[in-house]
């Protein structure tokens, strides 16, 4: 029996026993929302710490290791500092949009988290258009960046925001198409069903060559989507200072910062779900213990996150026109051909299944 699922079912049953149905549903929603918020905060802070430690490891440094065990509380302290800081802004900024922008970014990444299949049954929101929902949500995030850059009335921020718009719109295509390639195998957009299909082999194995191509394209486009190096045009420290969040301070800056890391987590989590069997263990070694799925899911995701960090701390940044050339002249045509190949493979039943 799935222990985690049974605990959750018990809580659900108990709520509906002690309360009228409507109230119980609302209470349940609030509880789930709080749980996700908690996860969001912890994951964000952990990923920031992980990035700093990984960066330090690449760069012959030690990284934060003083606050808490091995620096575990470092980012917590940083967040508290940012909370206590004054929120400054430019005088001629468009106040409403300027204040709204960080919430766009953070809310969209929180919403995307809701459909992640952490393990069997632990998924807040299992809609039948899961993948579509994720792609749709992730393209809203860029509005926050555009608004922030536009409204802060700073030319550097504006250049950053415009670059972000161009970049995200372009790479959205690749993300969508590479995921679509995999959907051809699963035949469903629902995340839980995509996982179900992978019980007979992870999709990257089932779809072999086109799946590997799709995975590579997905990781490139995903890195671009999260605006991380080598695609960090938006911030481009050496070119634009801080890019779109130049004029943000305190917790508003922290929202952008946390959202970047959560987005990275989400991109990796989608890759885990679609290519690496989500919470399924390799070769079914822990099939009898479904609650271990959480560890498999997070483990695979963090491995991919590490891959993205590896990109960031090794590669130089592309120039903005090269970035667009890469997408429109290379990734997109490859992707389209790849879809056809995948369709042929699925049609001719050439997928590898165990």
């Amino acid at each position, binding site marked *: 029996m799935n222990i985690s699922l049974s605990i959750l079912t018990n809580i659900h049953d108990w709520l509906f026993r002690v309360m009228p149905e409507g109230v119980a549903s609302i209470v349940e929603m609030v509880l789930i929302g709080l749980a996700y918020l908690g996860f969001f905060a912890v994951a964000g802070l952990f990923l920031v710490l992980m990035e700093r430690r990984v960066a330090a490891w690449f*760069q012959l440094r030690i990284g934060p290791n003083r606050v808490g065990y091995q620096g575990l509380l470092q980012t917590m302290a940083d967040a508290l500092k940012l909370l206590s800081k004054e929120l400054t802004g430019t005088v001629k900024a468009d106040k409403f949009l300027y204040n709204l922008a960080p919430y766009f970014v953070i809310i969209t990444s929180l919403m995307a988290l809701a459909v992640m299949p952490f393990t069997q049954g632990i998924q807040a929101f299992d809609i039948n258009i899961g993948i579509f929902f994720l792609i749709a949500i992730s393209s809203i995030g860029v509005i926050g960046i555009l608004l922030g850059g536009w409204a802060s009335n700073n*030319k550097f921020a504006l250049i950053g925001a415009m670059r972000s718009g161009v970049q995200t719109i372009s790479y959205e295509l690749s993300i969508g198409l590479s995921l679509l390639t995999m959907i051809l195998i699963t035949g469903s957009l629902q995340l839980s069903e995509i996982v179900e299909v992978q019980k007979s082999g992870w999709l990257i194995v089932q779809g072999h060559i086109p799946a590997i191509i799709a995975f590579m394209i997905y990781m490139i486009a995903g890195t671009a989507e999260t605006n991380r190096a080598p695609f960090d045009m938006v911030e481009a420290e*050496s*070119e634009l200072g801080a890019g779109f969040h130049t004029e943000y301070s305190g917790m508003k800056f922290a929202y952008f910062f946390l959202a970047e890391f959560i987005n990275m987590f989400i991109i990796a989590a989608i890759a885990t779900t679609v290519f690496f069997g989500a919470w399924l263990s390799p070769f079914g070694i822990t099939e009898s213990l479904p609650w271990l799925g959480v560890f498999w899911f997070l483990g695979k995701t963090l491995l991919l996150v590490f891959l993205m960090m590896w990109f960031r701390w*090794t*590669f130089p*940044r*592309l*120039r903005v026109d090269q970035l667009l050339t890469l997408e429109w002249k290379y990734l997109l045509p490859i992707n389209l051909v790849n879809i056809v190949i995948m369709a042929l493979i699925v049609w001719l039943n050439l997928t590898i299944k165990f």
Partner: protein
Amino acid sequence: MQETIANKNFKTEPYQINMGPQHPATHGVLNLLLTIDGEIIKKVEPDLGYIHRSIEKMCERDSYQQIVHLTDRMDYLSSNINNEAVCLAVENALQLEIPERVKVIRTIIGELTRISSHCLWWGVMGMDVGALTTYFYGFRDREMLNDIFEETCGARLTMNYNVPGGLMLDIHPNFIKRVKEFVAHFKTKIPEYDRLLTENVIFQKRTKGVGILSKEDAISFGVTGPVGRASGVSCDVRKHHPYSALDKVTFKECLKADGDTFARYQVRIMELWESLSIVEQLIDNIPEGEHRVATNAVIKLPKGEYYQKVETARGEFGVYIISTGTKNPYRLKFRSPGFSNLSALNHMAVGGKIGDLVATMATLDLVIPDIDR
């Protein structure tokens, strides 16, 4: 009618943006006034004066020993070579006979300074094109050199090791051993630099064909150093007018014909190898002898004009002294390499993107206090 409305609504115009004086890519207090059309650069106007300290005027007040100390506040990454330039100028004017030992040690430390400067440049170059890790690799190797300098003369950056007449102190007993250790260490690290950055596809795409400076333009802008040599101008002072012990060593002038950012990058990496080879040739053959010849406590140069040029990590550094026979120079002019190199920036960057400007500026290897004295 329709067209005019469209033009009115979608009128585009170039805009100006201040890059600096506080900007990560300008490495100091350089202010570049950019005129940009979208991402494309129309004009680059360097705005100097943020770190002007009137060093040349201060030199007119100071004695010749004191002038040496001012020079390493200019190009602080080639401080020792700058010091050497003033010392050589004064020594030539006084027609002092400098011991061989001093010449060899000056050359060794000069080349180590060049390596140290190029290490820092390499790290910062990577950072400017977005590879943040290079910075720490460059600084790791530079740290060893700084330790050697610290042991030799007590200072890590602004060394002031040279005085008119020789060296302030003799070398530390550990010096030869540690330099040999460094040479052995660094020989394994330059290939690592190549693997991390030079061979990276993105890096090559970012730098090849970017910021091109033709040979004719390089000459007319007075560009020297690795920047000039990357455009095919044979301008290595060490080769054409050897000073100190540089006439005793064999090394080749690193020349490239492309004149683009990647060529400038390659020239500097080649110079690392050449400098290492110079150090290797000299380190075992430091002659015995005095580390300093006595000069008068108050140096008075004979009446006349004196010019001495040396090759710093950035190019030709010249000291022009007009003496009226007193203890201070009547007028003193420094020819700093960075100033001429910066003058070519507008020519190189126009038509490129902002990212190209940053990459181009990184290979100019600007040190702002050198430009803005």
